[in-house]
């Protein structure tokens, strides 16, 4: 037990270091961006208006002062960390003076819900079918399924998304193609709202599942193809163990460990959002928020989104590290 606690402590320090360096790198990159938030805001406020040049100069000075971007970068860096340890990313410059984290928390649930569900479905379909295909290599249905997986997987995501959009939004318009829920429902714990959310998430989720399951399928099939040649599998078959038991308890279970690592990484990655899905289906989420923040030079918002993402991925890896000894007895023995 003592050894495990030392292991956990080391990993925890690594986690904190990764988050610190990741967030610091993000700070540096955003502040090296050529996009000036003052000019971006000035553009939004004056580009289409009649404004004489003196007025624009006065506005520029006022916004620079207001946004605090005239301070040296090291001073901004220290201020940033001193705020961050209190959980404050500062005001968004895109939506000044609303806190950046407020905008993140508005978009985050949509992205996380959609991507978590889509990732888990994709993982389940891909791995179960991949495992079966790897074990039953002569099964015609599974062979056909493999062909479909191999056929869809390389298609660019946006092509699949557009095909779904046209099929189910125009040719056979049975699913909504825009937004997170319909205008005629009241957000809350009521069935019309929940069913509307599910309806609106169906096409985005389907597009992610269609493109995503092929990778899991191919990976699992390859892993299982190796495992089935192991002696213990042959021994189990000779011993007359049921095929379903062999594939479920011995083959797929052993092949699943690296897939679970990848799943943890994928679940951590859901916090980065998915830009194309949000664009194609007009779906709310973090991806387009990040793009807007970058284009507006909104340091605070970029840092808020990126920090959530860095923390999520690092934490996912940390959790996998902690779970390995539980999942794999060989690691525990080491």
């Amino acid at each position, binding site marked *: 037990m003592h050894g495990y606690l030392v292991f956990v402590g080391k990993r925890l320090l690594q986690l904190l270091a990764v988050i610190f360096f990741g967030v610091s790198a993000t700070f540096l990159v955003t502040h090296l961006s*050529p*996009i*000036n938030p003052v*000019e*971006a805001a000035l553009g939004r*406020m*004056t580009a*289409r*208006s*009649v*404004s*004489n*040049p*003196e*007025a*624009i*100069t*006065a506005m520029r*000075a*006022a916004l620079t*002062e*207001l946004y605090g971007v005239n301070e040296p970068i090291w001073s901004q860096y220290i201020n940033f960390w001193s705020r961050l340890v209190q959980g404050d990313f500062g005001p*968004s410059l895109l*939506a*000044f*003076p*609303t806190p950046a984290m407020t905008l993140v928390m*508005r978009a*985050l*649930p*949509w992205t*996380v819900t959609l991507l*978590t*569900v889509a990732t888990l479905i994709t993982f389940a379909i891909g791995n179960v079918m991949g495992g079966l295909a790897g074990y039953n290599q002569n099964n015609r249905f599974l062979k056909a399924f493999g062909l479909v997986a191999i056929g869809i997987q390389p298609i660019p995501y946006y092509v699949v998304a*557009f095909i779904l*959009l046209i099929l189910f*939004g*125009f040719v056979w318009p049975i699913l909504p*193609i*825009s*937004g*997170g829920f319909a*205008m*005629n*429902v*009241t*957000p*809350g*714990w009521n069935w019309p709202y*929940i069913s509307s*959310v599910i309806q609106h998430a169906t096409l985005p989720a389907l597009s992610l599942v269609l493109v995503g399951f092929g990778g899991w399928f191919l990976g699992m099939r390859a892993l299982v193809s190796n495992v089935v040649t192991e002696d213990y599998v042959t021994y189990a078959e000779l011993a007359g163990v049921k095929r379903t038991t062999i594939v479920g308890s011995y083959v797929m279970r052993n092949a699943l460990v690296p897939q679970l690592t990848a799943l943890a990484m994928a679940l951590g990655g859901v916090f980065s959002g998915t830009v194309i899905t949000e*664009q*194609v289906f*007009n779906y*709310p989420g973090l991806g*387009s*928020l990040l793009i*807007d923040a970058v*284009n507006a030079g909104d340091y605070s918002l970029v840092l808020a989104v990126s920090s959530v993402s860095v923390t999520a991925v690092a934490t996912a890896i940390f959790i996998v590290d902690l779970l390995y000894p*539980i999942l794999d007895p060989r690691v525990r023995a080491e």
Partner: protein
Amino acid sequence: MDRRSFLIGTTAIGALMVAGNGLALAQEAEGSAPDLAQFPRNETVIVHNPEGVIRNPGWFNLWANGGGGLSTGLQQLTADTFWYIDPDAGIPEASENAIYYSLAEGPWEYNDDFSEMTVRLRKGIMWSDGVEFTADDVVFTVEKQAATPGTGWYGAFSTQIESVTAEDPYTVHFKLKAPNSRFHTTFSVRWNAAWIMPKHVFEGVEDIVAFENNPPVSLGPYTLHSYDPNGTWYIWEKRPDWDKTTMALVGEPKPKYIIYRNNISTDNRLIEMRNGNLDMIHDLSPEGTFSIVQQDPDVQGWFPGFPYAHPDPTLPMAVFNLQNPKFQDKRVRWALTLMLDARAMSMASYRGAATLSAISIPPTGTHPRDYHAPLQDYLINFELDTGSRVIKPYDPDVGLQIAEMVRPQFGDQVPTDPEAIRNSFGYGWWKTDVQAAEELLTAAGFTKQGNQWMMPDGSPFTISVLVPQEGVINRLGVMIAQSWAQNGVQATAEVATDIWDRTGAGDFEVEIGWAVETYGGHPDLAFFLDSYHSSFVVEPGETQPGRNWMRWKDPRLDEIINKVRGIDFNDPKAIEYGHEFVKLHLEEMPNIPIMSYNVFSIQSNRFWTGWPNAENPYANPVTNWSNAKYIFTQISPVEGAS
């Protein structure tokens, strides 16, 4: 618990927690959703707003940049100010020379030297909460913003206004810090203007830069009904007392509800209109427009046939950085102009649906009447000395040639009447004349080694052409760079995300953008021209205030600007001075005007009809312009459609 149960359990619980958390947070979001049954289509117009996701959807403070939407209906339906200037002709019986007197009962009244302005306000105009609009609101609007850095009109008010007083509840008097014959345009809507604040709402607010103003008290004919907590739609409802707003002077707005929807991708816009979920689309791609107008007989563009698009009073051009030594000789600028092919640029950018302009005024609204048509003879006879000979570079028939190029594809959709073609495709442009370009460069001291032009100092003539990431302007810029490269100039298109910053900072050689925007329906050019005065041009490295991005300085230009400053906005001499500007511009060619910014705005006649178009140009159909609100007084529901 065995490992299998542990894995299954934790995965399931995790997924449920994440999903539940998402729903719970969404539930806590602001706003309430309506029942769609309340919105029968014969009472409801659905408008596409080109803004992306509104990141702070509950922000309705038009006077501070808080992340709320502007063209969500907020500025079109709830805001008001003294005057509106239509980019097209305006509704004849309600406007005068395309000017609507809105909160002001008549035109601006200046003193002799334009250092003071008096505005007489309409009586009986009510805010939506029943408070009367008076001069006190105007005084508050000016004084509060002038004293509050970070508000939208802080710069305009603090630098220009010495004092503002309410002489009585319906008369406002401005004293300016310096004479300015165009001061009234601060309160004249083109795309927007300085909107009047409700004093009774804002006077108790300590920090107006942090004030959401939710729900907004409206001075327009609609109030907020509901909005999407995710920032993609807004619903507005007609006020029962709409006749107490300035809209009543034009007519009753017909829709009971107007829904503005934003963040809709181009493809979704097409589908949504075909499915009956949009009546007005702000813009499509050229290809998308060609497709939907051919497939859906209910859909219309600005022109009844090709090129369909509405020409905005904005003029895309190749902007030279005149502080760069490469472009300081006008012969070089003219040489680069004559290397271009108008037909290639039109086809590359707009698939032929461009409205060309050889002069530095957009070919839109009433400008063809005031500038393009009267200057045709001048352009046809315009002579350019190449150093070897004198040429007449203008080709008045380029528009006709482009019409013939697209006719095989679009057939009857392409007009045949030369006048209609000129209105749609432009009056003409410069002939491609590589020989003359070579003569001009040679006269400027350039030499040619093989196919490469060398500058007088012996180094290769290279040009970086700054272009946006996508869209018609990107396509145009790439074609321009390609044309120059084919003719011996090492020109490359440089795609940049920070064009706005770099243009202002002068960090470019040639930028594809625009330095000219006008009112469109009114001939006055001061909207852009005043900023061309040499007193505003900054040194290299400093940020240039708009719109003279090329940093053009010329005493003759200053003289024209000073003459325009000395006359009233409506003085007919403004057109005469505008002609002088065009001629000086042609002589110097500080930038290369190419075409109007054509916006492929379309409308569906399935549920509503009576939209503006080139034959009845009573308003600008581009949905995010504030003056598009007048459209709602002119449309009517289609009988039987629901």
